[in-house]
């Protein structure tokens, strides 16, 4: 059908190319920009998705306000060993390590070690009840906007991060901690010399 008619049309109509707006130079550039942009975006997304919890480099700085109103800023804690523990009241494995964390805190609290508990995506009442239940006395605060956990790329809770006296990150522990691992790591980090 089309062949027949095209013969007829060719005879009747002068060759006319309508001004193809879409395919003008700027149109082409725009389309290329969009396509390249989309591919770049997806590539970036892939990189983001494959990020694992941080293990080295300088520990990302943050400020945390605790449930009882105190504030800590990580960068101001140089000279002390900092143990950052991400937890939540709805997380069963967190309960396994809660008592161990608290007892280790009490053992090291006067030796230049700071424990910071970051409460990830939790409701206040259950969080306070959890802290009551395990008689937790170290510094704990809610991760507002989940910003701190995003900085550390946590994949779940519980996760513990070790920060040395000079503010550098020395690895992490995914999942609940059990004795004597935390003690050992703290001893290692405490033995490091530190000069201002």
């Amino acid at each position, binding site marked *: 059908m089309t*062949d027949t008619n*095209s013969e007829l049309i060719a005879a009747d109509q002068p060759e006319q190319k309508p001004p193809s707006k879409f395919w003008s130079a700027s149109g082409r550039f725009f389309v290329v920009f969009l396509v390249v942009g989309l591919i770049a975006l997806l590539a*970036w997304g*892939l990189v983001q998705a494959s990020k694992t919890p941080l293990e080295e480099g300088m520990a990302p700085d943050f400020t945390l306000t605790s449930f009882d109103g105190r504030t800590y800023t990580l960068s101001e804690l140089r000279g002390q060993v900092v143990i950052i523990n991400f937890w939540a009241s709805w997380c069963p494995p967190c309960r396994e390590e809660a008592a161990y964390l608290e007892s280790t805190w009490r053992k090291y609290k006067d030796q230049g070690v700071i424990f910071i508990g970051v409460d990830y995506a939790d409701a206040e009442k259950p969080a306070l009840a959890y802290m009551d239940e395990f008689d937790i006395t170290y510094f704990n605060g809610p991760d507002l906007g989940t910003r701190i956990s995003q900085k550390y790329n946590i994949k779940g809770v519980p996760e513990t991060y070790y920060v040395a006296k000079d503010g550098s990150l020395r690895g992490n522990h995914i999942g609940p901690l059990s004795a004597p691992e935390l003690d050992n790591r703290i001893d290692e980090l405490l033995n490091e010399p530190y000069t201002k």
Partner: protein
Amino acid sequence: MIPDIGLIALVIAFGLSIYATLMAINGEWSKKAHWVASARNATVAVFALLTISVLTVVYSLYVMDFSQTYVADVSSTAMSPFLRITALWGGQQGSVLFWAWMMAGFVAVVVLRKWESNAALMPYIIFVAMLTTTFFVGVVVFITNPFTEMWLVPGAEDLVIAIFQPANSQQFIPYEGSGLNPLLRHFGMIGHPPTTYLGFTGFVIPFAFAIAALMKKDTMSDLWIRSVRRWTLVAWIFLSIGLILGGRWAYDVLGWGGFWGWDPVENAMLMPWLTGTAFLHSVMMTEKRGMLKRWNILLIILTYSLSLFGTFITRTGVVGSVHAFSKTALGPAFLVFISITFVGAMVLLMYRWNDLKSEHEMESIFSREAAFVLQNMLFLAITVAVLWGTVFPLITELFTDTKITVGPPYFKQVTGPMFIALVLLMGITPLLAWRKQSTRKFLARFAIPLTGAIAATLVWAVFNPKSQPISLFSMGVVFFVTISILAEFWRGTRIRMTTRGENPFTALFKLVVNNRRRFGGYIIHLGVVMIALGFIGDAFFKTETQGTLSMGETITIGEYSLRFDGLESYLGSDGREIVEANTVLFKNGQPIKDLSPRRDYFVVQEQPVSIAGVYSTPAEDVYVLLVGWETVSNQSSTFKIYVNPLINWVWIGGFVLAFGVLIGAWSQARGKVEATYSLKNQQGEGLGALPAAQTSTGD
């Protein structure tokens, strides 16, 4: 032993598909027909080998050979044999193999069936299709191989997963497998992935044809379009059924009372369906009027790229989703492949841009052509909106370092009006003639559906007094389109009755049978309207309530009430602990059904699954969930009840859709419908056959 056979077959298939790809293009460029023939044979061999590979995996699953990592991951002794077999596509490795197998199958069928009528395009088609198959088989061989086994290496903390035994290691064979995610143990698992994959992979054929036509410079003849029409329909209906089955599955097991969540993976499936539907229609424009040639090719490139993109999103977790497979190293490989495919195809199209001029021009904006163009634009607009909403969280994270969610409210508000406009267009377009529609005739034919729709809407409003204006408008559109389509059936039947004296049933039957393409299309549209009706019910007329009941208490919603009669717990099959509530549903005070909503807890996977108690009628579903209970006394339970009006029309519409496709795709006898309005020469009796190049009716 058996898995080894599967692995060997897989690797040979990979080698052969590379061979087929290269030989096809080489044979064409060097004009060596026997090379192309060899490529064709290799194509069929690839499919045969992949079949062997797939069968070995199925066998391993069936006999629970836990030495295979894949089998240990997705099956367990608690699963029935039937479910174990469907676990073939339950994990990443098996499902990519499944995908590759299907794709190879499609190519093999094309190559075996269409050799005669498409000889010129065949080498290029083999090249494009086998290039894609090579990629997928390559991914299976090198990245997500289902034939890996587990090894204990001294000194290593975790098991080593590898195909070949590492030095000094021992094989590890677990006693039990992890089993399929409990949410996947549903009949939807049998239907949804295969049909969806068939849909996605099916689009490789029209894509290959289009690229082949571009490469061959065969663009003036629209042969390729006629040839692929039926393929496109097949891919489209499978994708449509896949979407509907996915919705049904979500409705049954997710316990949300809904069937479409605008989740990124769902959107990823929707986008190729949208452009694929647009393609189906614009193909009609090219066939009938020689128009929109460039647009056609653009659409099929988009559709195919979007279906690859869909599987990319699903398998890589780039955008967070409830559906996603566990992440693997697939991401970069897929991204590169999709980019090359899309960009390469677009460059080719641009290169041939000037060879694809439209033949017929349009005479009046008030015509079917204009309606088609508008419809295509709307489909594309919806696709853009969905794509934008799906990737926007990534963009936000990139530029503002904040994570956001783009959820259903966005998609509903943005795409809703466009979908309604599309449905409306679906009802108006049959009233428009090609080229130019006379206003007078239009108004005459428009009047009946319009008045019918207004009347029906008013009746609806009376029975649903609290409806918002937008919902009434939507219902009105649905009524309008239904009447408009039924009127077409009516008119045709009545003409046959008066001109041929047939009775109504024979007239209707023959009308449809003699105009299968057209009336198949109308039936498909009726199916679409029914599905639209289900979505409208879900969007505007849904109600819900939640409350805690002690024994014997009742909760009310609308004309329904539910009485809680007791709770029982017991152990079920598959290693689950079940808590089940006995309830009675009342309508207007009369008991109508006993419902048993329950919560299954799969102990090994620590996964709860809610099974609702449902009372279904064409008018609505009453969907009851057990959301909480008193663990100590079992005396009170919390229930959530959804009343989902019109929801069953989605499933009914799905059947109508499939029926319509069967009718529409059923080939008319050669030389009948397609050839009536162009006489070239006369051969034999009747209307005469056209020259060979034009008689293909697209099977």
